[in-house]
């Protein structure tokens, strides 16, 4: 446990001492819940269509694959025309691309960023490393199966896949969303305990609340 997260005695301005427990006082402890779809199907379909056509990617490059995403913004590939944009904050993003190998240290950040995204949210595993470890299969600090830790909607294989592959991946993701199958967030909430167990098995210094709102 990091010192700043430990319980501490604090003296208020009136001289009364009391205890501050950062994890309880500074972080929301509520676990995630399964968020139902809209009650009326046609509304949900409308939403799904909008979700599919307005994919906002979290600008977070976890590994070397991040370099493959940049060309998508350029005239050559221009992902914007498919309704794909990059957002700098997870609050506003819907799609998290794990771009390549994910060390345990980055995994912690990835979990945090993922949990701070709003339901529904999607994850793409980019490159072999996210599928089975790829060339880092024997590394002491790189995870080998992304879907153990986060609900993955789609993998794009390759080492590294080219931007065209990513574009194709977006098209596939759109189909998944349109079909109403992009329910990773709810899956995560349903199997929350299982995911947390997996995550905590590899992250030894768990220094955050179980769910990062």
């Amino acid at each position: 446990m990091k010192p700043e997260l430990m319980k501490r005695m604090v003296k208020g301005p009136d001289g009364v001492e009391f205890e501050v427990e950062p994890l309880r006082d500074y972080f929301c402890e509520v676990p995630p819940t399964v968020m139902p779809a809209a009650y009326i199907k046609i509304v949900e379909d409308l939403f799904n269509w909008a979700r599919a056509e307005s994919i906002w990617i979290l600008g977070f490059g976890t590994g070397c694959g991040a370099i493959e995403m940049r060309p998508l913004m350029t005239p050559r590939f221009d992902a914007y025309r498919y309704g794909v944009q990059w957002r700098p904050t997870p609050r506003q993003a819907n799609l998290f691309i794990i771009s390549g190998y994910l060390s345990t240290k980055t995994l912690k950040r990835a979990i945090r960023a993922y949990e701070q995204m709003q339901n529904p949210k999607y994850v793409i595993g980019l490159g072999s490393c996210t599928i089975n470890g790829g060339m880092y299969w024997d590394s002491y600090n790189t995870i080998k199966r992304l879907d153990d830790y986060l609900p993955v909607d789609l993998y794009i294989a390759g080492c590294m896949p080219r931007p065209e592959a990513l574009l194709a991946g977006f098209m596939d993701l759109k189909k998944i969303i349109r079909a109403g199958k992009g329910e990773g967030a709810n899956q995560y909430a349903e199997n929350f305990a299982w995911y947390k167990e997996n995550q905590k098995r590899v992250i030894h210094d768990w220094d955050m609340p179980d769910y990062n709102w």
Partner: protein
Amino acid sequence: MDFDWMKIPYAFLTVFIVVNYGFLMTALIQKIGARVGRRYGIPIWQNYLDMIKNYGLRSSITHGAMFYLGPVFRLSGGVGLLLFVPSIYGSYMFSNLSFAGDLILALYFVFFGTLGMALGAAESGHPHAAIGITRGLSQVSMAELPFGLAVFSVALQYQTLSVTDIVAAQQGGMLTWTLFTNPLAVSAAMLSFLGSMMRPPFDVVIAPQEIPIGPPTEYHSSYLALMQTNRVIFPVAKIVIYMNLFFGGATSWPEFFLKVFLIYMWSAFVGVVFPRFRVEQSIRWFLVWAVPLGVLSIMVV
């Protein structure tokens, strides 16, 4: 008080027209920007999709009451600003709620949304929100000065503060526009306009890579949807003031659409050409280039 209740549906109509126009126009401008970069650009209806998507998000969080109210303040500011100024000159239907006050009301109401939004963003506790706000406020304090001077100059010129009267004075062909009768004020105001549109080179406030989009960094879902709506209403409302003061106003919707588009294009045009200023650079820029124009305009008018 004899209030004409028909004003209410008319006001809604104005808002409806402007929102849709704003959605399409901003997308178009973005598309033009993309074409400058030789990209294809977003679909023209992308803004609608984004907004529906944001309303369609199932979860959301709140940091507290002010956080919750921030976007409400913001959009109220935008809608209010739009409604306090007549949109179409000579049209009773689209004179909106301008009976409530004159130009000064509109000028000061600009800050209503900004202030509320700043408070909401600040309650999130995010340092980047606060940093973005300090930048925005610092920049605005100087960027607004030339505009204030230009407005003063125009008010002196026409000896009135009523927007309708100012537009009326310009109804004699293009050469009676303030643009030609008081070019100094218009140039000062148009430079100031650049600073208030959150476009390059004056967009350090929402610098995405440095302080992830600044004040709205914590906003999402329906909050963001409200803010998106404001982001199309507010510039149009603001441009309407510019249009009425400097460019002869609009007597019909097509004229309105064209003028608003062209004025908006001015900032887009500058934006795609210039890189970003730091805050103190932009303050100095306004101080050196725009303020003297404004001062000159009030001295000679």
